[in-house]
């Protein structure tokens, strides 16, 4: 049941899968017919299959070695795997001719990538048909796939052809710090399982038919997508709504909620409407007819926060504060992935920042625009800002919440946030560890991967937006989306569009922000004010990091409140001295007062006062002393 008259993508591959789920053994028995058209300009004598679930076969696989059996707060509990029984091409079983390859680390325990040698090379544009019989064992929920109780989430559950893009097979094992990359295509998937289960999947339901022994068969169809995921749970509460936003073509949203969370459906729908409307306006309309949002149950946190084409998981845990947004920040991020991963299908193995960072950037803007500046879902240390920041809590609870104002991490948190602080906090420790541009598993560790792919990219894009101006930047993002939707762009393609739209070379900006492991820092090194012949002379020494000598503004604020603005151009210097002679003495000087560079490694050295004052220092010393007394008092009370 095709949704569009003409294909939106170059459909390189078509899958027809018939799967049967045994809910006792948590195992899938399936047959898969792959129709693959060689998209390259060269003949191919092999094709390559990703068998992702073999990453969960044992502790020595590359994924589990790299993750240490721990992924996003969830421990690996039960193994899963994928076994091929037959790969038939032209009536010949190619399984004996196949071999596992480990191009990234040579780990012989890793069976996540299979080379299938073909009896006959496939010429450019020629089609290969392969029929595969396979069996997949669900792992315990881990790394956003698996089973927990009656909840099944099947991502990467079938043998999937590797991407052949720009005449190059993109061959990588499954790494702890990487997601996926595949060609666009068409999926016809039939799933047989007990009738009590409610199903959701990428694509549309084509048919749902009962079978004997209380079983059902549900058939899905999806096209112009590069992956197919499904989920099943007997307890899902289904909420359906057709969204027609901003004059764009309508699409159906299906919420698969747990009974506990059904009362939050409006909160879900509000966030989805607000997000999809903005993504549509900023970049382009959502091109599919379906979108399914899954709410994983307690005990299945390993399935939270994941994106697949037309299907995402959120993760609404109990009692989210009305004005705190840990849940919305996840939901909106995953919705943004429909654009930056789903439609603009960049390479998540090799350029993880292109989807994660872009989704984070879009989500950050939407959160700010829709929910306002005092809402934060970002994490700070082990706490969420939303949990610790009194401004994010409902004041109706009265002065009890004022207590939070004297808690160490929440004291008087009344400052207007000028930068996405959670991202700043994640990025700073790794700023000089890795450059932003790396293959996902080549970052020093998972922390560096996450900080670079998500936080640093978001800050970098925000910096670019502020340097170029929002209009130019938004135009470039829209052009990037329009030119590369249903295709596989690279960072080079993005830079080309940005330079084209801004009409200037941006090497000096991109080099420090993307390609070097440096932490740009703009600072006031010294400030001296002296009286000279009835006037005040101020000498201000400015500094900036070598390699990131970007043009920056300087603000001078005088004791009478008057202001002067100066500019330090990108002349390659790492320091300069500016002096002024005025009637009124200088109160302080501030570099980058508009926070054009949220990527700045240290904001506290951006401003310097002419006169020292110990008032803030003494006040905070009194607080620390008080907290110390309280800590001692509490523990000694128990002794």
């Amino acid at each position, binding site marked *: 049941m095709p949704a569009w008259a003409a294909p939106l993508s170059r459909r390189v591959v078509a899958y027809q899968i018939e799967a049967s789920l045994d809910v006792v053994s948590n195992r899938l028995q399936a047959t898969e017919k792959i129709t693959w058209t060689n998209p390259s300009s060269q003949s191919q004598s092999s094709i390559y299959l990703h068998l992702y679930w073999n990453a969960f076969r044992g502790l020595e696989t590359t994924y589990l070695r790299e993750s240490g059996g721990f992924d996003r707060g969830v421990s690996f509990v039960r193994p899963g795997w994928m076994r091929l029984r037959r790969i038939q091409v032209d009536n010949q079983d190619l399984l004996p001719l196949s071999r596992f390859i480990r191009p990234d680390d040579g780990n012989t325990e890793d069976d996540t990538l299979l080379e299938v040698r073909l009896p006959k090379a496939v010429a450019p544009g020629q089609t290969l048909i392969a029929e595969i019989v396979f069996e997949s064992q669900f792992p315990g929920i881990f790394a956003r796939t698996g089973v927990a109780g009656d909840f099944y989430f099947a991502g990467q559950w079938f043998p999937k052809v590797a991407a052949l893009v720009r005449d190059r097979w993109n061959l990588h094992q499954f790494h702890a710090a990487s997601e996926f990359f595949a060609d666009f295509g068409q999926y016809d998937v039939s799933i047989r399982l007990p009738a009590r289960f409610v199903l959701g999947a990428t694509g549309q339901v084509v048919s749902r038919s009962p079978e004997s022994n209380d079983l059902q068969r549900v058939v899905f169809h999806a096209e112009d997508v590069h992956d197919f995921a499904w989920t099943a749970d007997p307890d899902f509460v289904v909420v359906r709504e057709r969204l027609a936003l901003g004059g764009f073509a309508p699409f159906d949203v299906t919420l698969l909620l747990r009974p506990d969370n059904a009362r939050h459906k409006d909160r879900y729908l509000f966030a989805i409407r607000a997000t999809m409307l903005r993504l549509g306006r900023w970049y382009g309309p959502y091109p599919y007819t379906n979108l399914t949002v899954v709410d994983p149950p307690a005990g299945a946190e390993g399935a939270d926060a994941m994106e697949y084409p037309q299907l995402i998981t959120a993760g609404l845990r109990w009692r989210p504060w009305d004005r705190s947004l840990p849940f919305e920040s996840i939901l909106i991020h995953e919705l943004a992935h429909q654009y930056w991963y789903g439609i603009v299908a960049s390479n998540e193995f090799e350029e993880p920042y292109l989807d994660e960072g872009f989704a984070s950037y879009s989500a950050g803007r939407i959160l700010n625009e829709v929910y306002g500046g005092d809402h934060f879902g970002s994490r700070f240390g082990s706490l969420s800002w939303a949990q610790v920041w009194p401004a994010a809590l409902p004041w109706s609870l009265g002065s009890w919440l004022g207590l939070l104002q004297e808690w160490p991490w929440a004291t008087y948190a009344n400052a207007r*946030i000028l930068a996405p*602080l959670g991202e700043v906090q994640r990025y700073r420790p790794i700023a000089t560890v890795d450059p932003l541009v790396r293959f996902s598993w080549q970052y020093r560790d998972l922390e560096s991967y996450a900080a670079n792919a998500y936080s640093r990219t978001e800050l970098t894009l925000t910096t670019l937006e502020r340097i170029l101006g929002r209009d130019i930047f938004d135009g470039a993002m829209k052009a990037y989306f329009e030119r590369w939707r249903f295709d596989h762009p690279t960072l080079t393609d993005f830079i080309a569009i940005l330079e084209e739209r801004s009409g200037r070379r941006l090497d000096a900006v991109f080099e420090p922000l993307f390609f070097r492991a440096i932490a740009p820092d703009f600072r006031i090194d010294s400030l001296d004010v002296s009286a000279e012949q009835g006037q005040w002379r101020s000498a201000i020494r400015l500094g900036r990091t070598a390699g990131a000598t970007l043009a920056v503004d300087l603000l001078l604020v005088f004791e009478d409140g008057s202001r002067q603005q100066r500019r330090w151009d990108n002349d390659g210097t790492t320091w300069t001295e500016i002096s002024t002679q005025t009637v009124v003495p200088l109160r302080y000087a501030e570099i980058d007062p508009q926070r054009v560079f949220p990527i700045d490694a240290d904001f506290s050295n951006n401003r310097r006062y002419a006169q020292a004052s110990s008032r803030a220092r003494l006040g905070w010393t009194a607080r620390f002393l008080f907290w110390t007394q309280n800590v001692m008092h509490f523990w000694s009370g128990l002794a």
Partner: protein
Amino acid sequence: MKVFADLERGFRRACNRRLLMLFWLVPLVPALVIVPAVLAFFADLDQAGFRDEMERGLSPEWLVDVWSRSTVPLGTISLLPVMLVPAGVLVQIFLYGAVLGQRVAGERQALAGPYYQVWQRRTWITELFAHGARLFGRFLRLSLFGFILYWIVFSPVRSALTALVEVAAGDSDRQLAIARLIRDGVILALTGCVSLALDYARIRAARLGSRAMLLRLFEAVIFTGRHSVRVFATSLIAVLPVLLAALALGDGSRWLGASPPSWLLFCYFQAIMLARSFSRLWLLFTEYEIDSDLFRPAEWAEPWLTASWPAARPEVPWNS
């Protein structure tokens, strides 16, 4: 009504300026150790960015900056109060000994009248410190036993409850959250029980002059169990000053204005610490009143000590 009578007697005992000063000032001394380190830590604020914001309150931007600057580890500064906890605990154990020892002496004195007065030659403060020193070793041992009890509560008991909670909650977040709240409530109640048992064990040990601390702890557990309503009700009421102080703390920023002078902040915080100290003292004396009301040591049943007691003398070996 016995609860209120206990609290009233405890309150009268706690309204002792000298003791209150002692309870507030002595723990303040080790806490002052952090002052030079903190002053140095915040030195940047005198001239550098976020000074204005930090005068008004916490600037999250400043916090993130400091956090990411490895040269001045915020973690170390934050850990300083934790590092001082052992000092606080030792000081508190000493103070418990001092106050309880003196209270026991006072009770004996009240019973013995002029006989006891004859031996009472020391000043208030020397007597206080002598009692603290005498009972310190015993109370320290008692705290170590208490530590074992806390470990049992927070390790095997909590693990068992957690396992139970996860089974009971199924796949419902709501039930899981409620079950976890119940678990935490149980743990909190058990922690309170241990803390109260330690208090009563100390009081009993001081009154009996006992060195058998494990036995006293065992007795105290039974005692708090048998008189649970009285014991728990008084302890809950006696923490009221702490709650009021907490409320005041919450509203403080409103009273003090957006940018209060540091001396005012210091006085304000110390007033709250005084309230906390008073609460502790009040609870301790109330517990003492309950114990002395319900239990009279047989060792005190000397004819010259119990002349005014109408109760029959208990049988003790040296009387036969």
